[in-house]
């Protein structure tokens, strides 16, 4: 070729098929590092060295196009949105890859899909949006972390929550609250700040995160500025949330009659000493309290975000402020977040670039007291969800003189001649008590990147993630919660700090025109420290005081904790493709983690994958299949990753703990460690294919996966008489998840005025335990953990899926006598007459039915989950509807046992069908006061197990984008108004408020239980997005 020193200028405009300019399109000269990007108007201008032959245009969401330069001075380019979904960039851990080149199983959710949803944390809006991703909103308590599972439940004792990596830094997950308010760590991210969420599901995609990858890895990328002038945008919505599908309860008259009938049936009714009676209220009419009205409310919420962003040739910035104030459906349950995010990237010179991120959020999570809905709270005596159900409707929270109706901590009985007709008075609790958690969360990082050669990059990234939790509880001495303790206050401060330093060297090289190689090598150093301390005080010295700083006579330290852990890693990746046809990649990571056993800290994790883009083969074209399939890629991967999420800092140590004996110091043997403890190992296989048909108007991905988990960590209880203080964590169990996933994206109609996009995904998963520890035939877990053994309704046993229901079988109600028929462990029918009379059918005495008569029942893990989303646009209108569903699972509706309890508890109206005379065919046993066996309050019965299958209209949004003519007049760049509904309708046969439920949060071993929880709300929002 000619040696010429001259350059010349080429200009042009890049447009989309409809003629609108595409900003930020990369225009580069093939085989060199020279290039530029188009401006806001789609126009570019660049100097091209003589001899340059080919220009490559590429824009996010558009297909790459190569054009030969020739002697042209103006090259305009119309980019097609051809293989839309395959051309995107995905985050793969320590870098990005083009989706079409990725061979791992990755799903992407874009920011706009979640940014305007009325949720506290972004992941709560992910349900139904990606195959293999299960999100279940446990209940209506604000900021309670959703159940988040990728490809099933992958651990029993450790966490099944995926690793969340935000802008390169693995962050804290879970509930950091020490109070009755939820405090999901991920709520610190303003959803409006999220550019995209990439979900790595198989070993190929996740293995680069080694010992933390078993549950999948979720990469969150926050927004950066886009080339062009500064943009200012405002997003805001206001929403209204109401509880829905609350059980229908007895009113005061029905309650009084029903309970009196119960007393008569029990033979204990006494017209002077033992009866139920109405009480007249201040208006002279009998009191008839609807307790729902005192506990629930219509929550009003609003959310506001303002961002300023932009980019020049060398600088790219994004700055945002957010404020949200959300009210839950339970009174006093509020969430407020103030957040700020600043992202900047600066090119210093041709080689060096640098950048930083600073985000800070302050989240205040408010609650008055226990809702009874967070993990561990289900039997909280004053649980607000429960109190609203069981308190007698015939009493009022207030006496007729306006004072609180309370007696010795319990709500007063008024005219009822009973010792008790409710638990705590919820009005006192709501008026006087607080249980709040404030989180201050800083996530920041800075990097420097050196690119001495176009194919060689060195990057050093240092990041911090500091989460401070400030918990404050106050319980007034007249409230039920603190009546016994004569006032109670507790404050606990928790500090969680993480620093991560990552150094990577990467090479992207193409040679011999068809061979493309990417190499990555890195080391990472991560230290996490935690510290907590608190004070609890009781016996208030004067009712004037209402905080921890006031006067109390009993003081105790609480929540003392301190610890740290350290993770040191070396990792590498190799990607190779030949002619964009054959793809190979390998990931390798060595992790060394301080929390593991002394000899088992270091381990190697890896994943390999291959892909084959068949459409590039000549036989494909010659066979004419390309007329149907515009793309078709086969892929497969295999690898080994681990799980350490949930292993505490010092599990390998046996330790002595300090204590007191009569005020004097003690050091007692308190914990047996396991010096051989190591990570759970997950061997993941994934095969699948992606294809596009009709020029990628329809794209689909299908995968089959299998995840074999070995060395499952279980808390292995030792023989009790050995006297070992704790169940020792040991790697013993194994289980698998296998399944099939499918996602289909279709641009059904692409008209000038009308478009219709549809997205459907489904995942079928099977979970089975294959082994537990020797001498540990099964694991029975109570709900919640630590509850009475009578509440143990979940069993995890080889041959079954995790957390299978374990309940006593029953055979209905005997039409002759109205007694519940139980089936005991010997398969004999046992009839129960309250109190205490257990008989066989022949009338002979039978041993009492107890938890030993439980049987393994149905699975709680859904067999199929999915989502179906449709987006219609007509001119400036847009309608989006998302349906989600879960199928093939059962729920233990424990709340129903309480709703049918024949003690003083208020009941659901269904009890009015109770058996009354011989011949009655009913499922509701004879109403005998005091009976808590026949309806399952005292012992768990299969009558409360229901199919949980549901289809939910999760979200509908109707939006209107102001036409350009108007926007221009008011000097805006965009304006969008919308009205949106969340959780609008549920199609289900489940009788409880919401089959998407989890009393025990993310705990897998006792999932699928709905016990005394507050319902999920239905939300309607009105929103506005403005671009200046």
């Amino acid at each position, binding site marked *: 070729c000619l040696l010429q020193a001259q350059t010349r200028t080429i200009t042009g405009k890049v447009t989309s098929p409809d003629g609108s300019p595409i900003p930020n399109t990369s225009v580069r000269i093939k085989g060199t590092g020279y290039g530029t990007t188009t401006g806001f108007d789609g126009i570019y201008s660049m100097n091209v060295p003589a001899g340059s032959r080919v220009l490559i245009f590429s824009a996010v969401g558009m297909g790459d196009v190569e054009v030969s330069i020739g002697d042209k001075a103006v090259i305009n380019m119309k980019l097609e949105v051809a293989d839309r979904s395959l051309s995107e960039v995905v985050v793969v851990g320590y870098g990005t890859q083009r989706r079409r080149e990725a061979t791992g199983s990755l799903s992407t959710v874009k920011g706009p899909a979640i940014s305007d949803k009325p949720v506290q944390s972004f992941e709560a809006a992910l349900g139904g949006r990606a195959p293999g991703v299960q999100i279940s909103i446990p209940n209506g308590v604000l900021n309670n972390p959703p159940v988040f599972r990728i490809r099933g439940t992958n651990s029993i004792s450790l966490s099944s929550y995926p690793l969340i990596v935000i802008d390169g830094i693995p962050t804290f997950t879970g509930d950091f609250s020490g109070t009755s308010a939820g405090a999901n760590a991920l709520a610190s991210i303003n959803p409006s700040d999220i550019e995209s969420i990439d979900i790595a599901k198989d070993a190929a995609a996740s293995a680069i995160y080694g010992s933390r990858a078993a549950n999948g890895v979720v990469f969150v990328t926050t927004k950066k500025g886009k080339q062009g002038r500064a943009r200012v945008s405002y997003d805001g919505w206001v929403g209204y949330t109401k509880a829905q599908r609350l059980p229908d309860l007895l009113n005061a008259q029905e309650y009084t009659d029903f309970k009196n009938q119960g007393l008569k049936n029990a033979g204990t009714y006494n017209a002077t*000493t033992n009866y139920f009676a109405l009480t007249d209220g201040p208006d002279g009419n009998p009191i008839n309290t609807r307790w729902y009205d005192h506990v629930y409310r219509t929550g009003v919420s609003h959310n506001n975000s303002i961002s300023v962003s932009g980019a020049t040739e060398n600088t790219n910035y994004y700055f945002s402020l957010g404020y949200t104030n959300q009210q839950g459906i339970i009174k006093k349950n509020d969430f407020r977040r103030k957040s700020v995010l600043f992202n900047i990237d600066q090119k210093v010179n041709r080689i060096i670039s640098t950048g930083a991120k600073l985000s800070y959020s302050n989240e205040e999570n408010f609650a008055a007291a226990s809702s009874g809905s967070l993990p561990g709270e289900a039997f909280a005596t004053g649980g607000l969800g429960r109190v609203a159900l069981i308190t007698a409707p015939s009493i009022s929270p207030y006496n007729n003189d306006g004072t609180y109706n309370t*007696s*010795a901590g319990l709500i007063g009985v008024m005219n009822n001649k009973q010792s008790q007709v409710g638990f705590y008075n919820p009005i006192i609790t709501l008026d006087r008590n607080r249980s709040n958690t404030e989180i201050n969360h800083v996530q920041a990082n800075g990097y420097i990147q050196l690119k001495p050669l176009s194919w060689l990059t060195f990057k050093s990234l240092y990041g911090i993630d500091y989460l401070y939790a400030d918990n404050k509880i106050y319980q007034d001495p007249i409230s039920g919660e603190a009546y*016994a*303790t004569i006032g109670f206050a507790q404050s606990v401060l928790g500090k969680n700090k993480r620093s991560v330093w990552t150094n990577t060297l990467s090479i992207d090289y193409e040679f011999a025109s068809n061979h493309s190689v990417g190499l990555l090598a890195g080391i990472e150093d991560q*230290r996490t420290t935690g510290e907590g301390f608190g004070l609890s005080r*009781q*016996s208030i010295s004067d009712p004037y005081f209402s905080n921890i700083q006031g006067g109390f006579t*009993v003081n*105790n*330290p609480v929540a*003392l904790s*301190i*610890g*740290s*852990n*350290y993770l040191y890693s070396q990792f590498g990746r190799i990607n190779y493709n030949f002619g964009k046809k054959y793809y190979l990649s390998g990931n390798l990571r060595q992790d*060394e983690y*301080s929390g593991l056993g002394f000899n088992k800290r270091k381990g190697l994790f890896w994943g390999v994958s291959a892909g084959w883009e068949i459409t590039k083969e000549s036989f494909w074209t010659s066979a004419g299949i390309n007329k149907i399939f515009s793309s078709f890629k086969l892929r497969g991967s295999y690898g080994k990753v681990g799980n350490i999420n949930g292993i505490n800092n*010092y599990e390998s*140590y*046996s*330790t002595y*703990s*300090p*204590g*007191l*004996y*009569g*005020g*004097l*110091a*003690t*050091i*007692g*043997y308190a*914990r*047996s*460690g*396991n010096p051989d403890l190591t990570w759970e190992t997950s061997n993941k296989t994934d095969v699948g294919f992606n294809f596009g048909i009709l020029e990628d108007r329809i794209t689909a991905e299908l995968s089959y996966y299998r995840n074999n988990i070995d060395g499952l960590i279980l808390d292995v209880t*030792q*023989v*009790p*008489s*050995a*006297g*070992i203080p704790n169940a*020792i964590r*040991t790697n013993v169990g194994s289980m698998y998840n296998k399944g099939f996933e499918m996602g289909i994206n279709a641009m059904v109609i692409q008209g000038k005025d009308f478009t219709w996009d549809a997205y459907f995904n489904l995942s079928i998963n099977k979970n089975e335990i294959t082994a537990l520890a020797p*001498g540990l035939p099964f694991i029975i877990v109570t709900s919640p953990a630590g509850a*009475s*053994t*009578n509440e143990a309704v979940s069993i995890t046993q080889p041959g079954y899926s995790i957390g299978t229901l374990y309940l006593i079988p029953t055979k209905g109600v005997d039409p002759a006598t109205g007694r519940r028929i139980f089936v005991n462990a010997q398969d004999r029918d046992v009839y129960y007459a309250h109190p*205490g009379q257990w008989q066989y059918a022949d009338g002979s005495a039978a041993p*009492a039915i*107890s*938890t*030993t008569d439980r049987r393994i029942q149905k699975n709680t893990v859904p067999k199929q989950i999915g989502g179906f989303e449709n987006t219609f646009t007509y001119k400036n209108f847009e309608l989006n509807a998302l349906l989600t569903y879960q199928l093939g699972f059962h729920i233990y509706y424990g709340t129903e046992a309480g709703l049918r309890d024949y003690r003083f508890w208020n009941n659901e109206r269904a009890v009015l069908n109770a058996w009354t005379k011989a011949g009655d065919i009913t499922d509701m046993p004879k109403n005998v006061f*005091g009976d808590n066996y026949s309806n399952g309050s*005292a012992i768990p019965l299969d009558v409360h197990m229901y199919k949980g299958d549901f289809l939910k209209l999760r979200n509908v949004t109707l939006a209107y984008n102001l036409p350009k003519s108007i926007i221009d007049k008011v000097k805006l760049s965009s304006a969008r108004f919308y009205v949106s509904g969340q959780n609008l309708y549920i199609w289900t046969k489940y009788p409880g408020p919401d089959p998407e439920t989890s009393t025990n949060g993310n705990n897998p071993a006792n999932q699928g239980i709905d016990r005394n929880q507050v319902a999920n709300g239905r939300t309607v929002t009105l929103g506005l997005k403005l671009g200046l």
Partner: protein
Amino acid sequence: CKRDSLMDTKPTSDIPDLSVYSTKEQIVNQIRALYSSFKNGQFHGGRFLIYNDIRSEEFLNEKTNGVTGLQTWNHTLTNTVAEVNGLWAQGFLAINNCNIFLDGMAEKGTAVVGDSLSKNYTAEARLIRGYAYYCLLQLYARPYWDGNGTKPGLPLRISGNKLRADYQLARSSIAEVYAQVISDLNYAEANLPKTYGSSAAELNTTRVHRNTAIALKTRVYLSMQKYAEVITEANKIVTASAPFTATVTPGVAHALQPDITKVFTTYNTTESIFSLPMTSTTGDNPGTQNQLAYYYSPASSLGGVGNGEYALNITGIIGNNIAWPATDKRRDFVKTTGTTTKKYFLSKFSAPSPYTDYVPVIRYSEVLLSLAEARVRSTNSVDAQAVALLNAVRNRSDATKTFTTGDFASATDLINAILIERRIEFLGEGRRSPDLLRLGLTIPAKSSTSSSVPAIAPTDKQYIWPISSTELDLNKLCEDNK
């Protein structure tokens, strides 16, 4: 690159296993921790006493709450019930802590504290271990008289367990376990300090000394119906004539206090041979739903400090106005509530939340009554000293009643009077069920407003507790009670 010091991070708020024998103070702290696990609210700091009282006819269940002993009260326990598993676990935890300590002393501790202190400490640990075994026998094993100790006792473990291992072990016979108890108490008697000092009233009550071992032996031998041994042991710490006191010097000068009510407010008098101290600091008191006052004292609206879980049974000892007249000071412990429907509660334990009453293990009055009973049973006569001992206990609370030998037509009459005195004197102190069982008496029937509980004959399966289901599940060599 890797920072090795961070990789070797050690806990800072707990002490790793091998670092607890470096100083004498550390070892004393470990000794006190043995008491702490023994006084856990699931064991002797609360529930052990409560279960042994509510099994009997003296108490009525008020709350029908399954987590506060309902099934113990109404004799419907099964292996899986929480109290059966909870007490078993905590009892053996206390035992294993003693074993771990004893192993550690042999291996390292003796060298640190020297031989003589080491013997003191070893004796303390053995006393707690032995007595904990005795406690578990009272609920989980048949009484000694049934087969003379040949029935299944407990898995007998006398070395420490720390790591995960195969801990299968069959139950030793009752006699074998009692032999270990006696052996531990004998060692304790020989090696414990005689006293912690004449001014160390608190330690003399809350740490065990020579007299504690002797006093506990009177209880153990009484359970075995070895009355001669009861007399031998009691005579070591009871003078031959009134006022009956412990006069061996050096040694703690045990004696009855003039006012019984003071014994339950001033916890460290010489009457309280061994009590478990409580403070308001969390972890240093029995904890939620384990406290004596929480169970027995009525709600504050009724003038109590507790939750009124159990009321006194009017057909129990409190209804016996002849044997227990109103003039008796101990009637002050019975609190009457209500006007039309009266209820009676025990207010012996009266410290409010967080319930810091010391929990009695053994008081001097029991040694006197046990000695009296043993004398009558071994002589089978209306023994004059036995009557004097009975009077010592009765007269300090009711000066109006002094028994004479003429009051008793037979030895049986005198024994019955002593047994009634025990019911009055130790109401709420966990003695009633062991007293019924050691003598093979039927547990009487009882009725509350909500239910009636049948009598439990000595042949009934519910006469003793079933074995922990967790133990049976994991220890295949352990058999259940039949």
